[in-house]
Structures are given as structure tokens and as C-alpha cells.
């Protein structure tokens, strides 16, 4: 069977052993994360790495989950709408109580379902499961009753209408458990496979692969959004990652299938779509044009979408698909909702876009800007469809979307951030570690206004500092002077913002209530711009390097 990547992949036999990365040169200069895995580096204890890492990630995720969730616990008394937690719970309520044809229509004002069908099925499945599981938690008397009454009685938590805004420790525990289980079934295995395969292709030592896996699993941003704020981003990211796993093992059709799943779980995966399209197209035309492959790929995508939408159409009628798409792509909304560290929001300080231009104009402008931003990574991937460029390509494309597209949320920073962190599985040198951990730190900071509203200050502080410390942020800076300047400058700015927000300028705040949020947006935007450029530059360099010899540090 011909490899889809002629020219990109050379036999590994000829490679000289890659130089060992900094983490292996213990005890001279380890970052703490590498130090923790040090006792497990011998062949006899290698088997421990995976179970221990899994258990530690479960523990930290669950411990974060002990805290409050999106505007639930803390602001319980005040907000009438609650947050994403209530949205997810509400969808379970809707999908388990109503026939399919009403899913995308039911009372749209109260967290109407606006995610693609796979999320709806996921909610339905969890809601049904809770019929059993949750009753167990509340006491089994109800479970037995349920069995005897012969039907699936929906527990009160998901009773239609009455359950709105419900806030209960056991409900919370159940929801947290579903988030954890969903992540363990999608994202975590995808990461494990990715590190194993990608690390091997990049010639990482076993020890370094363990360190990279730990660094990716302990990533704080995804942890605090999914298990603190509460969402199921890891499922969408997990499907995308599984797609990448299949791409890097040359199973492009399976990869396309899983990417379609990702798209139909959460439309946000569109941030990755152009670059994946460019990659697959590149595989079809690179070196020699391969029409059958192109047709097959197209067919795979169409059939996959068909499979996902089929239940909706069959059970609810064809018009459901139109309504679903209408709900999923809300073009009627504004340029942004909350303050977010992208171009539009950051430049708003200078130019009041929303006042000076009408919405249609802005849509066009953002479309053009986004296209311009994502063009470079797409072109690079199209002309060099190489496996090892995938994480950087995904990251560059997602950064482009994040910076310039329409309707960006602060949580969307996860999309560029996750593939950026995946780069660690390819090279664990000092520079990369330093840049990646910096981006994670800044991304956490950019979500601070959101997390503070959720009451997750403690979790934010602990996770950010822990990850920064684990990755040696406090000890290592990039080699280049510009990098040093940016890192030190941004850390000082971040600390100054937090410090002054906590202790100073109370009078000033009365005059400008959004002062800290704006400061946060400007700092994060500056950093994200650098991050985006770094990723692009790195992608460019990597694609050049591949021409001559396999990449290494």
C-alpha cells in the first residue's frame, strides 16, 4: 500500500539517534515535571508511567471539579440564567423529555440547543444513563421503583421546566463525572496515542515521551474550562486529535471520519477545518495527482455527515437539519459577546468598530481578515502535506481564527492552545518548552475575567502556578533576546494587573468598571499575537527543514 506521504517520510534506520533533550540530562537542568517522571525512566518501571499519569490527571481534574461551576454556586442567588453548566444540564432535560423534532425548537430563549447533533446525542445518552446512575447516588429505592414501573422515569434533575437552574451537590457530582468520563473516553486516549506515534516519528526517547504526555495531560486551561467552568470541549478536541492520530498513521479516511465527528460535536472545530482540508488536498495532488483518493475522501466526509444527521432527519423530519444548522451558525449575533483578547476587541480601544460600521460590513471585514490569517498555514500544509507539520498547522490556523474571526469566546483559546501544546510531543527542547508553557500561562490569564465570575479564583491560581512551576517557567527563558523580553515583560504585566486589581485603584474602578478586563484583553492580545507569529514562524521553519532531512533539534 503506497504511503500517502511520499517524500515526507524517510526510513528511520538511516537516522542518527537524536540528540537528547534537556530533560534527559538530569540532574543538571530538569524542569520539575521531568523530575517527577525521573524514577520511572528505567525499563523495569516504564509500565508505571501511563497508569500513574492517568490517575494523577483524574485526581487533579476531579479536585478542580470540587469547586464551583459556571456562575452556579457562587452567584447562585443573583443570575437568572446561570451558565454553561445549566446549558448542558438543560440539554439533557430537553433531549430526554422531548421528541427529536422539538430538540432544536424548544424554548430557545432558555439555553436553546445550539450545538450540532452529536452533542444532542451525547446529552441524550448521559440523560438516559443518569436515569440509572443518578438514582443510585440518591439512593436506590428510586432505581428499583423505576425498574418496577417498567419505564424510564426521568429523575427530577431533568424534569422538564421544573428542573431549570437546579443546583444540587449530587447533580453536580453526576455532571462532573460525565465530563470526566467523556474526556477519559475521547481526549485522553487520543493524546496517549498521539504522543506515542508522534514522539516515535520525531525520535523522542521513551522518557521524553512520558514527560510530553504529562505536560499535555496536565495542561491547565482545558482542565479548568471542562471541569471547573463546565463544558465538554475535550470531546470535540479528542475527536480532532483522534483524526490527527489516524492521519499520522496514514489512515486518512478514518481520520476524516473522526474529524467530521468532531465538527458535529461542536462547530468550533471549524477552526481546524481549513488546514485539515488543505492537508488532505495536498495529499491528493502532491507529487502526483490522485483523483480516486480525492473522490473517496469526499465520499467519506459526505457519508460521515450523513450518518451523524440521519437520526435527526429520520426521527424528526428533514426540516430539523435546517433548523439545526440555523441554530448552530448564529450569524445574527455581534462581532463579539464578552471581551475577548482578539484583534477586534483589542483594537476597539482605538476604533469603535461597532459604532462606526454596520454589522454586515464588519462580517465581511472579519471574513477577509480571517482568510488572510489562515492562508499561510493552509498553503504550507498544502504544499508540504507532512505529518509532523500537523500540530503546528492546526495551531496556526486556529490562532488565525481566534484573532480575527467573528463571535469568538474567551474559551475558544483552547482551540489554538491544545495543538500548540501538542508540539511538545515532537520536541522537548528548552526553547519549545519555554514558549509552550508561556502560551499556556498567558491563555490562563486571558480567561481570568471568566473564571473570576465563576468563582474559580482558587483553582485558577493553583493550576496556573502549578503548571508554570512544573514546566520550569520560573527558571528557563527562551534563548533569543526577543523571546526573553516578551516573556519577562508579559509576566510582569500579568502580575501587575493581578496585583493592582486585588489591592489598588479602587477609586479608578468606579470610573472605569471595565479597566481590568480591558487591561487583560490588551495584554493577552499582545501575547497572543506573538504566539501566533511564533507558531507561524516555527511552522515555516519546520516545513523548510523537512526538505533536507528529518527534523530534530
Amino acid at each position, binding site marked *: 500500500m503506497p504511503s500517502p506521504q511520499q517524500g515526507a517520510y524517510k526510513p528511520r534506520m538511516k537516522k542518527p539517534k537524536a540528540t537528547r533533550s534537556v530533560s534527559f540530562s*538530569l*540532574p543538571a537542568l*530538569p524542569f*520539575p515535571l521531568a*523530575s*517527577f517522571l*525521573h*524514577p520511572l525512566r528505567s525499563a*523495569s*518501571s516504564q509500565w*508505571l508511567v501511563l*497508569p*500513574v499519569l492517568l*490517575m*494523577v490527571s*483524574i*485526581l*487533579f481534574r*476531579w*479536585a*478542580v*471539579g*470540587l*469547586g*464551583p461551576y459556571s456562575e452556579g454556586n457562587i452567584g447562585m442567588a443573583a443570575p437568572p440564567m446561570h451558565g454553561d453548566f445549566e446549558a448542558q444540564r438543560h440539554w439533557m432535560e430537553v433531549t430526554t423529555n422531548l421528541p427529536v423534532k422539538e430538540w432544536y425548537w424548544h424554548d430557545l430563549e432558555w439555553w436553546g440547543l445550539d450545538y450540532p447533533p452529536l452533542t444532542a446525542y451525547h446529552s441524550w445518552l448521559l440523560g438516559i444513563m443518569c436515569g440509572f446512575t443518578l438514582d*443510585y*447516588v440518591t*439512593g*436506590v*429505592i428510586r*432505581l*428499583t421503583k423505576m425498574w418496577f414501573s417498567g419505564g424510564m422515569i426521568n429523575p427530577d434533575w431533568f424534569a422538564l421546566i421544573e428542573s431549570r437552574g437546579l443546583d444540587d*451537590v*449530587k447533580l*453536580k*457530582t453526576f455532571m*462532573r463525572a460525565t465530563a470526566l468520563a467523556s474526556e477519559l473516553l475521547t481526549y485522553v486516549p487520543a493524546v496517549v496515542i498521539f504522543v506515542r506515534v508522534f514522539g516515535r516519528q520525531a525520535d523522542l526517547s521513551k522518557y521524553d515521551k512520558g514527560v510530553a504526555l504529562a505536560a499535555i495531560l496536565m495542561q491547565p486551561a482545558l482542565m479548568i474550562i471542562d471541569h471547573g467552568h463546565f463544558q465538554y470541549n475535550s470531546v470535540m478536541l479528542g475527536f480532532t486529535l483522534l483524526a490527527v492520530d489516524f492521519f499520522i498513521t496514514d489512515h486518512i479516511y478514518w481520520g476524516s471520519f473522526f474529524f467530521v465527528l468532531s465538527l458535529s460535536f461542536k462547530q468550533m472545530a471549524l477552526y481546524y477545518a481549513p488546514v485539515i482540508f488543505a492537508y488532505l488536498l495536498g495529499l491528493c495532488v502532491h507529487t502526483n495527482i490522485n483523483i480516486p483518493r480525492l473522490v473517496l475522501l469526499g465520499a467519506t466526509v459526505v457519508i460521515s455527515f450523513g450518518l451523524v444527521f440521519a437520526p435527526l432527519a429520520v426521527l424528526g423530519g428533514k426540516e430539523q437539519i435546517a433548523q439545526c444548522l440555523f441554530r448552530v451558525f448564529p450569524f445574527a449575533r455581534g462581532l463579539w459577546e464578552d471581551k475577548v483578547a482578539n484583534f477586534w476587541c483589542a483594537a476597539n480601544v482605538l476604533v469603535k468598530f461597532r459604532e462606526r460600521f454596520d454589522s454586515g460590513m464588519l462580517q465581511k471585514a472579519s471574513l477577509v481578515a480571517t482568510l488572510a490569517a489562515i492562508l499561510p498555514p493552509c498553503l504550507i500544509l498544502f504544499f508540504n502535506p507532512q505529518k509532523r507539520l500537523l500540530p503546528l498547522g492546526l495551531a496556526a490556523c486556529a490562532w488565525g481564527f481566534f484573532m480575527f474571526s467573528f463571535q469568538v469566546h474567551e474559551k475558544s483559546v483552547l482551540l489554538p492552545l491544545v495543538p500548540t501544546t501538542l508540539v511538545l510531543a515532537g520536541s522537548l527542547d528548552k526553547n519549545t518548552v519555554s514558549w509552550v508553557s508561556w502560551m499556556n500561562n498567558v491563555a490562563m490569564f486571558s480567561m481570568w475575567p471568566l473564571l473570576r465570575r465563576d468563582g474559580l479564583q*482558587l*483553582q485558577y491560581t*493553583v*493550576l496556573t*502556578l*502549578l503548571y508554570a*512551576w*512544573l514546566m520550569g517557567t520560573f527558571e528557563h527563558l527562551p534563548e533569543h533576546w526577543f523571546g526573553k523580553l516578551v516573556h519577562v515583560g508579559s509576566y510582569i504585566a500579568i502580575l501587575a494587573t493581578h496585583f493592582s486589581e486585588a489591592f489598588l485603584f479602587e477609586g479608578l474602578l468606579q470610573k472605569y468598571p471595565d479597566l481590568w478586563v480591558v487591561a487583560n484583553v490588551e495584554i493577552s492580545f499582545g501575547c497572543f499575537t506573538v504566539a501566533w507569529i511564533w507558531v507561524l514562524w516555527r511552522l515555516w521553519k519546520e516545513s523548510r527543514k523537512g526538505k533536507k532531512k528529518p527534523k530534530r533539534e
Partner: protein
Amino acid sequence: MNKFHPSLRECAIAATAFKLLLFPAYKSTDFEVHRNWLAITHSLPVKEWYYEKTSEWTLDYPPFFAAFEWILSQVAQFFDPAMLDVKNLGYDSVQTVYFQRLSVMFTELLLVYALQKFINTSPESSKRSAHAVALSILLSPGFLIIDHIHFQYNGFLYGILILSMILARSPSTRLYSGFLFAALLCFKHIYLYLAPAYFVFLLRVYCLGDSVFQIRFANVVKLGVGIVGIFAAAFGPFVYWGQIPQLLSRLFPFSRGLCHAYWAPNIWAIYSFIDRVLIIVAPRLGLTINQEALTSVTRGLVGDTTFALLPEITPRTTFLLTLFFQILPLIKLWANPTYETFLGAIILCGYASFLFGWHVHEKAILLVIIPFSLLALKDRRYLGAFRPLAVAGHVSLFPLLFTAPEFLIKTVYTIAWLIVFLTAFDALVPPVAANIRRFLLDRFTILFIVVAIPLIAYTSLFHKVLFGERYEFLPLMFTSSYSAVGVVGSWVGFCWLYFTT
């Protein structure tokens, strides 16, 4: 730079991060107990500390601990003065939780210091294992469950105990070891259980010369004056005010039952278990049952346990049994007063009081686990005795946390700890000659550890599915009987080692 990775400091930082995330977790009544003590010591004159009884959780720790609470309360007033009001029962504002939980973590630094000291003072050849042992104690699920979720201050108390055990190693510092231990007794009197070993050891090696008849008077005076001074500092004021009977009645409440509400995994748990089994078997054997007993045992009440068929146990019996099993190792310590025998004697004193004592709390298992950890890597046979203890002792702590959100934390953390450290110990422990290894016992240990998995699954998941709220004592009984087998097994194994080597 430290030679071994990860270093104690790194583990302490990571563990601290994890413990900070546990702030919103479940906290037991002990949290309110300690808040109440903060209030008592802060707002009342010392004279009234041991008389105050607005809350049912009266002050029942010795004076040093009360003073410790007083010091904490000086800081607490900057967090939230409302927690320092004696009448403010059940108060748990965010600031109160943060302050109390932080105070546990802050005082635990003493344990970290003691462990670092332990690594530094251990001989070069065993530094590596000492490092592993120190990490295992620092990250112990026991401290995580009891101190950081359930809420108590064991961390720094065990820090003092370990420091004092380290100081006993070198002849020049033995005096301070005795002082530290005396101070520890004035913090928490549960350590009285270990006192006989200290007494015999210090008497034999510090107060007496090579021969029993050669009394070193200078040492006797130094030790005596010091210890009397420490006790005087703690209890003197109360002696002066004539409050000692009241104080003692608080420290030693004899009105409690043989078994704690939940049975600690000791001999009496097995005894009660047999009794329960006999209730079912008795009608077939034609024995008469004490009807009173059918309503007793783990109904959640701290009261008298009545047995259906087996003879009643009196506090006197438990006391005599404890004393007997403490004296046996002490005889050997007297005859052969080496440091390792001393450690062994401490461990066996802990075992004896835990296994045979009256109204033992499951938390007291730390009295055995922590000292035993220091000796577990002596050679493979010691590790063999340690393994079932580590499994049983920690599993027996599970019923302390019964709320749904904490289930995952306690089980996953404990399993992770057991896997990591039992494997690490296995790799580090020096081997012994093959013929001494007890093949059967090793197999038994493995079987025992494997049984833990269905047991945890049953007690936490399947029992409720099968029986709902009925028979709620069953999972508790299984847990404690299972753990009791492990603890007793490791005790027998360790006794055998202690008396034969």
C-alpha cells in the same frame, strides 16, 4: 542539588497544589471541633478552657495543643473574627475554611522538615531508600484523608514524632529526643501508647550504663529535670488552679464503648464479626442469643457494644491485653537496646494499643504505619510485613469519607500511592537469602491485596445497588474485618521478625 528525583521539596509543592484544590471538599465535625477550640482559647481565660461546654465538642486535647490553637487564633482574627465566637456553632465561612485548611498545610511544614532531616541523617548506603520512605510519608493517603479532607492536625504532630525518633539515633541527641517526645505527649495524649518504648529505651541507654547497675546520675538529672519541666509548663497552671481532675476527665472519657461507631480494624472488629456470624449460626447450634445485642453494633451511635454469644469485653481486659503485648517487645528492648530494636518496639507498642485498645479510632492506624515506614526498607522480609499493613490501614480509612464527590479522590489517590510506593519499595529493598523468604506468606499477601479491589467495589457501589439503605453496617463490617485481617497479619509477621532477628 539533591541527588534523587523528585526531591522532597518538589513533592511538597505538587502535593500542596493538590491539597489547595481540596479546600471545597467535605469536612467532618472535626473541623467544627477545631474551630470551637480556636474560639475557646481565643475568647476565654485559660482557667475556663477545660470547663467551657457551650458546644458538645469540648476541649479534650492536652494544654500544649490548646496553646497551639491559641496561637492560631491570633492569626485567625485577621481572617474572620466571627469564627472566634464560642456561641457561633457550626460556623464555616469561606475565610474560616481557608484559614483552618491553610493552617493544617502550614504546620505540616514541620513534617517536611523532619523528613528532610531523616534523609540527611540516614547513612549514605540507605539514603536512596530513606528518600523513598520520606516521600511515601509526605504523600501518605493517611494524611491526605485525615488531615486535608476530614480535618485534623496530624501532619505536624507526626513531624514532631519523627524528629524525636531521628534524634534518638545518635547518643549525643537522645536527651532532646526525650524532651521532644514529652512535648508531643502534651500536644496529643494518643502518643502515650508509644511512651513505654521511649521510657525503656531512654532509661536503658541514657540513664544506665553498659551494665544495669551503673547509673549515670548526671543524665538522669538532665532528663528528669527536662521532662518534669516540660510537663510542668503544660500542666503546672492547671495543678495550681486545682483543675487536674476536670482536665483528666476531659482527656480520658471512659464512658465510651469498646468499638468506635465504625469499628477500627483490630482484634475487636474480628471478635464482633465472629459474634455477628454466630447470631446467624446459633439457632442451628441451639445456642441462646442475647436479644439486646441484635440492635447493637454500628448503628452509628457511640455507646456500649453488646455481644450476642461471646463474652463481654471490659476496659480492664483490653488494658491488660494491651499491656501484655507491649511488655513482650519491651523485654527484648531492655536486653538488646539498639536503635533498630527501639524502632521495632515503638511499632509493636503502636500495634498492641491499636489491636487491643478500648474505643480505638480507625485514624490511630497512623501510629503504626508511620513508624513502620521508617523500618520497612530494612530488608525484604520487613517489606513483606509492611505491605498488608499499607493496604489494610489505608483502606480502613475509607469509611471516614462517605460523600459521593470524595469517593474518587480517596480511592484513586490511595491506589496510586500504593502502586507507586509498593513498586518503588520493591525495587529499592535489599534482598535477603532465598531460604528465609516465606513463599507462602508472599502469596498470601498478594491474594490479600487483590481482594481489596472487589471489597472496595462492593462497599462503595454494589451494596447500595443490592440493598439500598438497608443493612448499612454491612459494608463497614466487611471493610473493618478485612482490614483487621491485614493488620493482624502484618503484626504477626512483624512480631516474628522482631523476636527472631
